[in-house]
């Protein structure tokens, strides 16, 4: 870490499309800081996959790296194909909540079950931002959206909890206010042998915040901060007390044989015969 961190080391000279105040800037910045602190002078050791949605634009085309920007919800299987053929690369998926746990949920669960050694970063802004603020599987109960103008009549999915139970080796959730913890989690995730999932609760001031009554992105961040409780704190709270709280921290950190290990073991075995 002798050299000073500069985003320009890792980014193409292309204006990002994000709105002012968007949490995607924070995720992009924090991830690249983690990469820098891990000692990567460039992104050669990485491959990035993303689907459709604002946060899928974090790596593509902005990262000076190999990036594949694919169809809505399908970044995880594409990343699986890349990783299986190039186990030496760090394969990282960026996607929004709609992409990862809406249309692409089945792939997420299966990737965790297979324990494919990729990192999935889900930027959860609780809304379909790019298409104009429609209800997501992560939108809190009762909140109004453009497709639930009388309030969301469905419950929100706890993606981290789900993926922890599906077999992931590393699961963490932070908000865009927890930048130093998030940065450390990115490092842990990339170094995890097996499936790693990071959920970042992020602000969409344009399609979410202003509709539910936040003046600006800053107010949303304050809301995140005021309502976040750590995993340890959460363990002492009742389900009722946890209503509308954001539980942050590391949910899973374990070791298990990864998919590339088990697949290549089979290849070795088959070639003996």
């Amino acid at each position, binding site marked *: 870490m002798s050299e000073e961190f500069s985003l320009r080391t890792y980014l193409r000279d292309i204006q990002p499309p994000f709105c002012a105040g968007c949490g995607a800037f924070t995720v992009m910045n924090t991830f690249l800081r983690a990469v820098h602190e891990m000692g990567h002078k460039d992104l050669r050791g990485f491959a990035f996959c993303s689907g459709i949605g604002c946060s899928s634009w974090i790596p*593509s085309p902005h990262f000076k790296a190999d990036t594949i920007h694919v169809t809505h919800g399908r970044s995880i299987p594409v990343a699986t194909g*890349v990783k299986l053929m190039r186990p030496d690369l760090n394969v990282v998926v960026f996607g929004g909540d709609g992409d990862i746990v809406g249309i692409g949920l089945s792939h997420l669960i299966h990737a965790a079950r297979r324990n494919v050694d990729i990192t999935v970063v889900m930027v959860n802004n609780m809304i379909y931002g790019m298409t104009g603020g429609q209800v997501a599987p992560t939108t809190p109960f009762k909140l109004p959206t453009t497709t639930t103008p009388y309030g969301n009549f469905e419950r929100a999915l706890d993606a981290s909890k789900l993926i922890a139970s599906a077999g992931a080796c590393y699961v963490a959730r932070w908000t865009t206010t927890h930048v130093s913890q998030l940065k450390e989690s990115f490092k842990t995730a990339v170094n995890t042998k097996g499936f790693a999932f990071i959920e970042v609760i992020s602000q969409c001031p344009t399609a979410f915040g202003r509709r539910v009554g936040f003046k600006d992105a800053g107010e949303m961040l304050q809301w995140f901060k005021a309502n976040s409780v750590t995993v340890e704190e959460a363990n002492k709270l009742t389900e009722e007390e946890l209503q509308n709280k954001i539980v942050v921290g590391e949910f899973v950190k374990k070791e298990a044989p990864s998919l590339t290990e088990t697949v290549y073991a089979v290849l070795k075995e088959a070639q003996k015969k």
Partner: protein
Amino acid sequence: MLNPGIKFMQGSQALAEAAITAGLRFFAGYPITPASEIAEHLAKELPKVGGIAIQMEDEIASIATIIGASWTGAKVMTATSGPGFSLMQENIGLAFMTETPLVIADMQRAGPSTGQATKCGQGDVMQARWGTHGDYASITLSPNSVQEMFDLTIRAFNLAEKYRTPVILLGDEIIAHMRESIIIPPKNSIEIVNRKKPRPGETMFFGGEEIPPMPSIGEGFNVTVTGSTHDEYGIRITADPVGHRKLVKRLVGKILNNADEIVEVEAYNTENCKIGVVSFGCTSRAVYEAVERANEKGVKTGFIRLKTLWPFPEKQVKVLAQTAKTILVPEMNLRQIFFEVTRVAEGAAKVVPLNKIGGGEMITPEEILAVLLKEGA
């Protein structure tokens, strides 16, 4: 991998063996009748040559996974049937737009929907051409024997690599499941095509020439792959009308402008016939006998068997339409290739459909002969 010589084997096995011979190193699929034998054979044989065969959670994941693997430089394939082929359509568009070489084997069964899952059909012809949304062009091959399951699979990989595009091998339940003797040629006599790779320092992977070079992930090219409209460097251009036209017209053009090289037919007696038959796949097997018997009975009959369905063999069918007064189009669907023949004939010949669906019952030589004798009289 099979040694050269005469083998007795199933169509699906021939396809799988040919894929390995062509250089397949990554297969992903989802179980479906009548294509599961392909996945099963590859699961056993591919690891022996260091390749990976994996069963995914659905057909969408299967094609997505092989797209990812193809970008690492591997030759890739998936295999399915009608319902799974439908699920793959969006990502076929992605593969077309990102110029990702891959092979999709679709062993047709009787649809729509679950239909008759174990019975043969030829109803995916138009799905193979127009299944994804937007403007595109398809390369679709149609084998009619176990030998051709081998030969056309090799060709499918070669075309995918050469043109940097998805290629559909459109078989059917009958060809996939039947067993025949085939000749496996010596390895060094089989032409194998590999994708063109960029030289170090090259940056234009999505334009600049008809078929640009394709780098692999992890080679340091910083390749930007996107299903969005993009410029020659892979950078998204989502609003520029000129850029979109340029890209999509090149992608369509690289297939349609090379139709002469891609298209293959088997033509018989087309220059000197009163009546012609155009057919493909399993149905074409019944046509040989019907054509022979019609000629024996004095009805001068020609035959074009389409080994390539898409791009449609327009030139060859046009020649037939100018010679023959009538063209008969037998197919196991309710008219699909019929409309293409009608379009190409432009009224020069009367085009007669002969269709049969259900129960996997093939169109018989007698049924074809009856029409030939009636129309050729």
